[in-house]
């Protein structure tokens, strides 16, 4: 009983210390981000920059689940109490946690919720229809234009017979992208060799398994593989195996080229959507957007090491060249 009394006192003191009066003048934006990750951090920064430049005075409550689903749900519940004017959910698990919280807390049904960095909002159950989301949830999807990525690789390797892809079979996004790539490669008669990993430390071994089997390797926007990109680049450099990425941030890390998915721009696009909603747009009729402009990034030293000759025309149209 004494222990219990002490526990109550300790908790009471903690509650007192932590509850703070919130200034309610500025609009409040609560953020439920799933994990610290350069791409996801860039989304948040782009979102905030875009809204600041549009002249909005906002107060942010940023939460990060540190890759824990249970914490993502606690954060969702926490956000209900923050009574925000808008919620930003970054990555699929956080977006799903927010969507479920809306269902359980009817007072949240009027709060606009924007998701970002979600590849497939339909199969994640977030929206009923990409054009007409139907409820208070909409956002931007980072679905890769796979046909254009494959086109880029084929432009540099017209003789390619087999393409390798490395991804984490446990990431819903990556699995969807690999399936998409399979459809696209089958259309042009290229064999797709898949190497799957379960954690970042498996990437080195998976890369080795592709050597001598394929003429080029492609990495989708996969959190696990991208975080161990250097290990992959090392294997590809040593074996003269040309490496291509789906996001431009991986180009300076050792990929030959990427047809730019830029997460910072992705965040800005979500921010512009938030601005329209603050000005009165209805999320239920705001269509889910994908990235419009793709920028070509090239890495010349990497191309040389991996034996890829880049034609002059491609150099001309590149948005950024790493020397």
């Amino acid at each position, binding site marked *: 009983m004494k*222990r*219990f009394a*002490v*526990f109550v006192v*300790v*908790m009471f003191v*903690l*509650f007192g*210390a*932590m*509850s*703070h009066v919130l200034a309610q003048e500025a609009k409040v934006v609560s953020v439920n*981000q799933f994990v*610290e990750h350069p791409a996801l951090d860039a989304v948040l920064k782009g979102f905030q920059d875009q809204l600041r430049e549009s002249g909005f005075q906002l107060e942010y409550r*940023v*939460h*990060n*689940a*540190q*890759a*824990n*689903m*249970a*914490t*993502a*749900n*606690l*954060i*969702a*519940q*926490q956000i*209900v*109490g*923050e009574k925000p004017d808008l919620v930003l959910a970054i990555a*699929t*698990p956080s977006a*799903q*946690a927010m*969507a*479920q919280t809306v*269902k*359980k*807390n*009817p007072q949240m049904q009027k709060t606009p919720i924007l998701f970002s960095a979600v590849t497939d909002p339909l*199969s*994640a*159950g*977030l929206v009923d229809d990409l054009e007409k989301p139907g409820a208070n949830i909409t956002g931007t999807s980072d679905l890769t234009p796979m046909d254009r990525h494959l086109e880029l690789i084929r432009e540099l390797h017209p003789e390619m017979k087999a393409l390798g892809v490395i991804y984490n*079979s*446990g*990431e*819903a996004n990556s*699995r969807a992208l690999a399936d998409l790539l399979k459809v696209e490669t089958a259309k042009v008669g290229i064999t797709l060799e898949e190497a799957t990993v*379960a954690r970042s430390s498996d990437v080195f071994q998976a890369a080795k398994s592709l050597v001598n089997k394929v003429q080029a390797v492609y990495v989708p926007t996969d959190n696990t593989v991208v975080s161990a990109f250097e290990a992959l680049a090392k294997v590809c450099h040593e074996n003269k195996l040309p490496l291509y990425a789906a996001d431009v941030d991986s180009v300076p890390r050792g990929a030959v080229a990427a047809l730019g998915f830029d997460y910072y721009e992705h965040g800005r696009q979500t921010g512009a959507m938030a601005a329209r909603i603050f000005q009165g747009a209805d999320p239920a009729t705001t269509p889910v957007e994908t990235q419009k402009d793709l920028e070509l990034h090239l890495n010349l030293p990497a191309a040389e090491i991996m034996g890829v000759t880049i034609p002059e025309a491609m150099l001309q149209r590149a948005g950024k060249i790493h020397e």
Partner: protein
Amino acid sequence: MSWYALLGAVEQGLVYGIMVLGVYLTFRVLNFPDLTVDGSLPLGAAVSAVAISFGVNPFAALFLALGAGFLAGMVTGFLNTKLGILHLLASILTMIALYSINIRVMSGPNVSLLGRNTVLDLFMRFGLPGYVASIILFTIISLSIVVFLVWFLHTEFGQSMLATGDNPRMITSQGVNTHTVIILGVGLSNALVAFSGALIAQNQGAADVNMGVGTIVAGLASVIVGETVFGRGGVLRAVVAALLGSILYRTAIALALSMKLGAFSFTPSDLNLITALLVVLALTAPRIKARFFP
């Protein structure tokens, strides 16, 4: 910390508490460090989510998950007792195998339950908001499991489980087959963990193959927090302490989330550090009290 955040912590504490009761069974009763739970929690989630998407009643889906978890635990017990693999390694092997199995069960890494009928809808139909319905439901379920466990540990089989953990040589000389006890005990523990996973998936609207990461860490932390704060004497006290420990642990995370002390503001990435510090505080509170306020 807001009212919603506190309710959220209690809700998560209760639903993960069922997992903690499972971890208590292996870790304290059987003295068997079992990492299978990182795989059996998403297994339960996967089985129930897939069952629901095939139109199975959400309550029936919970029991399918229970059965799947029981089998997973029995595999670990079998590897340990019959094949002589060290308990830690046996459980790690089952855990990593379950990663692939879970993806097969879901034919993909994630199954969404948003917009599907779950056990919560039954309560929400009476007009209760979801965040209240979930707490009522999880309280009923976790308390029923506490009652079941206390009864179970007083049965002859339960007593031989306690003895297997305490003194295997003594209980073998009494004519009890410790192999059977371990296989069934680890099975029962993982059945509870998978059951908890199934409820979690229905509560959060999705099953995901990565949702099990860190389950054992949360489970062990909750059991030990519960023991330290509420004491260990007797089966009833220990079981209730494990459940309360789970609620305390989630409350610590919720507190860490809502922290913003004066001018010194934590960044979101400090969450795990603050959680750890709060748990240290909760664990040392009795000691500090004894030292300074005797």
